[in-house]
Structure formats: structure tokens, C-alpha cells
């Protein structure tokens, strides 16, 4: 295929909405050399600047305000204090909730990978006619609102609480369903980008068993998609409130709400901290997670808009891999 390096969209080729004006300003005498293309680029820059400024204000001001709020003193006139922040570790209810939410996030991510990824690979390779059904089921939780799903889960969890365990970690069962649509999409894009069929056929012809194929070929080649899927799952679990609250479990978000009734500034401090924590986590992983260009475009457009990457480069690397 093309040996051109990927050029990012629109670079050197003009603006978004403003290009219309550039088009109509034609015929105004012979153009000054360089002026038109430069104008378009400047327009694009202005457009981007305006968008980033407005969005930046809209998203950063509330977070700044939370920080401001969490450092307010008792009265209007008292000086700034970090009391609310130091209180975080002093409230056992909170530290428990934090630890529980982290555990839930880990369990959900791992369970998601173990259950979903092999199924997707298997369906693609062996039962392709099931692909659409699998996709349908995975996207179903989008159309079944969590608040509705939890209504149906109340009796289920009553049964689980009596017969299995009443630990909060059982929430992972429900969370696994909640993360399905997002993780499915990500893994789906990742699988589309690696030409799974050629890859597994090559590996099988070299004598690899299915376990080896999964662990040594599929997983390493879509590490970026897997990581992204995990990140989405982690972010979702750390931010989840609906199910936990209605099933009477106290995870991080529920704890934040209830502590907020007692000490608003402490719970706001926790809220900011958890936001920043999740952001930093995603940020770090965005650096370690995309080691090579090859997988960076794993999140290609759904559908066949873009033919998936040829398997050639991936295959070449597979052959180079030590056995």
C-alpha cells in the first residue's frame, strides 16, 4: 500500500468553516503569492484557538472552583487551609471506599479481558456468523439504562447476598456488563487493525496452539487496544454511582456523596483528587501504551470506511519474533 507517512488531517490544507470565505474571495485581482494558503492556515489556527479557549474555560473553571472551595476556611474571612485535604486520609470510611473502588476497577478490567477478548477472537475466527449477535449483545447495555438495569438486578443481588457473598466486590458482576459496550468497541477496533485471520493462520502454521496464539500473538499485537479498554473500564468503575447506590453498597462515589453531607469541603477535595488521579493515570498510560505507530491507529473508524491495515507489516514482525 502507500509508503507515504500518515499525514494528519487538514495539515497544510486549510480551515474548517471559514474556507467558504476563502473560496469566494477568488477573482479579486491576481492573488498575492502565498497569501491564500497562509490565510487558510491562520484561519484554522484561529478556529482551534477559539475552540480550545472556550472548552478550556468551560472544563477547567469548575475544577478550579472545586479546588478553591476545598481550601476555604470555616468562615468567609478565615485564611486558606488544606484541612479538607488532610482530612481525606483521616476518614476511614473514605479510605475504605477508595480501596474498594480500586479493587473493583482491577477485578472488572481483568474479568472483562478474560471473558470478552477470547470470545471475540473465537467468534471472529470460528463462528463469524455470530459476530453481529455478539456485537448486538455487547452494545445492548447502552440501550438498557443502568438505572433500569439496576431495578432488575435488585432481586438478583438479594439472592447473591444470601447465597454467595454480600461483599461489595460482587458489584463487579454488574460493572462487567456496564463496561461491555465501551470495551467491545475498543477491542473490536484493535482486532480490525491487526488482520486477525492472517495473523492466527500464520501462527498456527508455525505450530502455535490456541493458547499461544492468544497470549503470544493476539495480545502483544493489540496491546494498545487492550490497554485502552482497561482504561475505559477503570474510569467507568471509579466514577460509578448509580448501581452502587441503589444496591446499597458504598463505593467511592457513594462515599463522597455521604461525606459531603457532613463536610462538603472534604468530599469536594476527594472528588478533585479522584479526578486528577484518573487523569494522571490515563495520561501516563497514553505514553506507555502506544509504543509504536502500528497500533496508534487501532481506533479506526467503525465500518469499512477505512480498509484495515494490511497484515504485511504485522506479519513481518511476527516472523522476526523469537519463538
Amino acid at each position, binding site marked *: 500500500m502507500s509508503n507515504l507517512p500518515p499525514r494528519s488531517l487538514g495539515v497544510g490544507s486549510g480551515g474548517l468553516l471559514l474556507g467558504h470565505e476563502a*473560496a469566494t474571495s477568488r477573482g479579486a485581482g491576481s*492573488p498575492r*503569492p502565498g497569501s491564500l494558503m497562509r490565510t487558510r492556515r491562520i484561519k484554522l489556527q484561529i478556529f482551534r484557538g477559539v475552540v480550545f479557549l472556550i472548552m478550556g474555560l468551560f472544563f477547567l473553571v469548575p475544577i478550579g472552583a472545586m479546588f478553591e472551595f476545598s481550601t476555604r476556611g470555616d468562615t468567609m474571612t478565615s485564611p486558606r487551609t488544606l484541612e479538607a485535604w488532610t482530612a481525606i486520609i483521616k476518614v476511614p470510611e473514605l479510605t475504605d471506599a477508595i480501596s474498594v473502588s480500586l479493587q473493583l476497577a482491577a477485578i472488572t478490567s481483568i474479568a472483562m479481558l478474560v471473558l470478552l477478548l477470547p470470545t471475540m477472537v473465537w467468534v471472529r475466527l470460528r463462528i463469524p456468523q455470530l459476530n453481529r449477535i455478539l456485537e448486538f449483545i455487547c452494545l445492548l447495555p447502552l440501550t438498557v439504562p443502568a438505572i433500569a438495569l439496576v431495578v432488575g438486578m435488585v432481586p438478583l443481588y438479594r439472592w447473591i447476598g444470601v447465597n454467595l457473598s454480600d461483599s461489595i466486590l460482587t458489584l463487579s458482576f454488574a460493572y462487567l456488563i456496564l463496561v461491555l459496550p465501551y470495551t467491545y468497541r475498543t477491542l473490536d477496533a484493535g482486532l480490525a487493525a491487526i488482520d486477525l485471520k492472517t495473523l492466527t493462520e500464520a501462527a498456527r502454521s508455525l505450530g502455535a496452539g490456541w493458547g499461544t496464539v492468544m497470549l503470544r500473538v493476539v495480545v502483544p499485537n493489540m496491546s494498545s487496544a487492550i490497554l485502552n479498554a482497561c482504561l475505559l473500564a477503570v474510569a467507568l468503575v471509579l466514577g460509578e454511582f448509580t448501581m452502587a447506590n441503589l444496591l446499597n453498597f458504598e463505593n467511592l462515589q457513594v462515599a463522597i456523596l455521604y461525606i459531603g453531607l457532613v463536610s462538603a469541603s472534604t468530599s469536594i477535595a476527594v472528588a478533585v483528587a479522584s479526578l486528577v488521579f484518573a487523569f494522571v493515570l490515563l495520561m501516563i498510560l497514553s505514553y506507555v501504551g502506544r509504543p509504536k505507530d502500528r497500533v496508534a491507529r487501532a481506533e479506526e473508524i467503525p465500518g*469499512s470506511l477505512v480498509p484495515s491495515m494490511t497484515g504485511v507489516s504485522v506479519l513481518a514482525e511476527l516472523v522476526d519474533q523469537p519463538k
Partner: protein
Amino acid sequence: MSEMRDTRAGIEVRLEDLRRSYAGVTALDGLSLTLAPGELVALLGPSGCGKTTAMRLVAGLEEANSGRVMFAGKEVTGLPANKRDVGMVFQAYSLFPHMTAHQNVAFGLSLHKVGPDERKRRAGEMLELVGLSAYANRYAHQLSGGQQQRVALARALAIQPTVLLLDEPLSALDAKVRSRLRDEIRRVQLEVGTTTLFVTHDQEEALAIADRVGVMNKGRLEQLGSPTVIYSRPATPFVAEFVGLTNRLDGVVRDGEVEVRGMRLPLVQPNAANGPATALVRPEAVALAADSENVPGPLIGTVIAVSFLGATSRVTVDLGDTTILAQLPTSEASAHPAGTRVRLAIRKDPVLIAREETAPAEVN
């Protein structure tokens, strides 16, 4: 638009000292090139030498760091692509995936305000030209790579641009379609008189189709000349090696000639200074004769391989200290199967010499 078909002669296209670099990589390093009105110039060069970049600068899809692009004496350097009336076929497939082949071709016409009936007719005509009438209603993903490339060609030709830029338009096609389409492009180009820049990495294609061939290396033009000049009188060792296979033989330059293994050959560069040099000898300048006597000589060797190329064959001869390639008609080559001893003769064509620090000569 259509009444201009026969009257419009091509325009002169001039590239002046174009420079372009990408984050440290110099893609174009002072490229100058003038295309006469209606001329077809083929750009030839190794991968990454800047052919596509040159083309994108002419099309207005990219800006030069310095230098100018002139159409018919008017500077267009800063003009965006859609104001340049340039038709382009991209190296990578660029069909619009949400349009059928027919719609792709018709789209360009509608942008040129061609009415619906005329549009339909002309798009049909162009698809006919590239032999894809039967595929008019297919979407890009339902076409093979070569078919997509042909639709892209039809799309570019349909708008009858004043300048046509073709970036390896035939690279995805099989040999037969390739040569048919090559002739077709040439025919249309001559008929309409569009000034055309044709990028390819296939030297045979370049030599066959072009009025003049430009050989590029590392972002600059090594030589520009007619196909015969490029082939038979390469100006630099790079051109000699890139255009056709070349034997490298050690020799000594003496008084405007080079002595190679006891043979004196005329030089392309008559003013070359005396001293040791490498002579670049084309395989077809090497003739073979059977050698029955068993005396070793400077130009006596053993055939170690014969590769059949069709009408001609290439014979590899081991001279003991080096091997030499000879290209001869298959009927002659069959007289020298592998293992036979042969005596070589080198035709007295002017040869090019290479030295460590060769300054490229200006040959036009």
C-alpha cells in the same frame, strides 16, 4: 469547458529552486525543472527522493520553504490547489468511498459546473476509456486496487485540467493493462495537449512514455533529457546505475579514453582527468563469442547463469576476479549455456566513468 477542448494548448510549467523539508528531513533540495507547453515529463528516482513532494508542490497541496512554481509565466506558488486547474492522480488510492466509480468521476465535473447530461456522458466516456464501464456502479471497496487507480485516472482526466500530475498511476496494474493504459494516457495527453508530470519508479515506463525524463536523487534533479539521452548518455553514475543495469569495471583514464582490461573505450566526459576510475558499461554493450582455447585472458570467462527475459536474455559471466553482465538476443544467448567458456567484447559506445568525488556533468 468542452469547447475549450481542442483550442487549449498546454501551458508552460516551471519549478524554480524548490526547497522543502519536513522536521529535519530534506525532501526537496533546490529542484528546478521546466515543462514546455504540452510536454510530458516523467520523473524517475528511488523511493523517498522527493518525487511526490515535487508533485504536491506543483498541485498546491503543500507549501515550499522557498522557490517558486510558475504556470504560463504567472507565479502560482501561494495559490491553493482548487484554484490551479491541476488534475492529479495520487499514489495512494483517493477515491471517495461514499461514491460509486461513476459518481467519483462525475463529482469533479460537477465542481466544474458541467451540466448533468454532459456530466453523465463524459463520466461514462472516461470510464469507457479506462475500461471500467461495467464497474460504474461499484463503490471503492468493491474495486480492486488497480481498478480504483483507473477510476482515479478517469476522474483526473475528465476535468481536462491544464496541468496533469500523475503519481505512479499505473503501479498497481498488471503488465498488459499497464502498457495499454500507458499508451492511452499518452494518446489523450497528446490529443488535449495537457502539460503532464508523470512520476514513476519504473524506468522502462518512463522511457517509453515521456518526451523528456528527469532523474531525481536526494531532492534534486540529476539529469533531464530525452529518453535516448538519459539511457545512452547518462550524465552521472547515479543516472547510469538507476536507468538500467550497469557493469562496474575498474579502468584507467588516459587522454580522453578509458582503458578497461586492455580495451580502450571512448568517454562520455571527454575532459575527465587522467587516473584510475570505474567504467560503467551497459550489459547490452557486451558481446559474447564462444571460446574454445583454454588460455586465460582479460576478457575470457565462464558463463555461470543465463536468465531468460523474453526476447533477450541476460548472461552472467565469471571473469575470475569479477562478474560481468551481458544482455543479448535470446537466440544468441542460447549458444552459451551455463558452464561454457566465452570471450567478451565491449562495444565502443561512449561510457561513463565514476570516481569517488564525481561532479555531476551537465548534459542535456
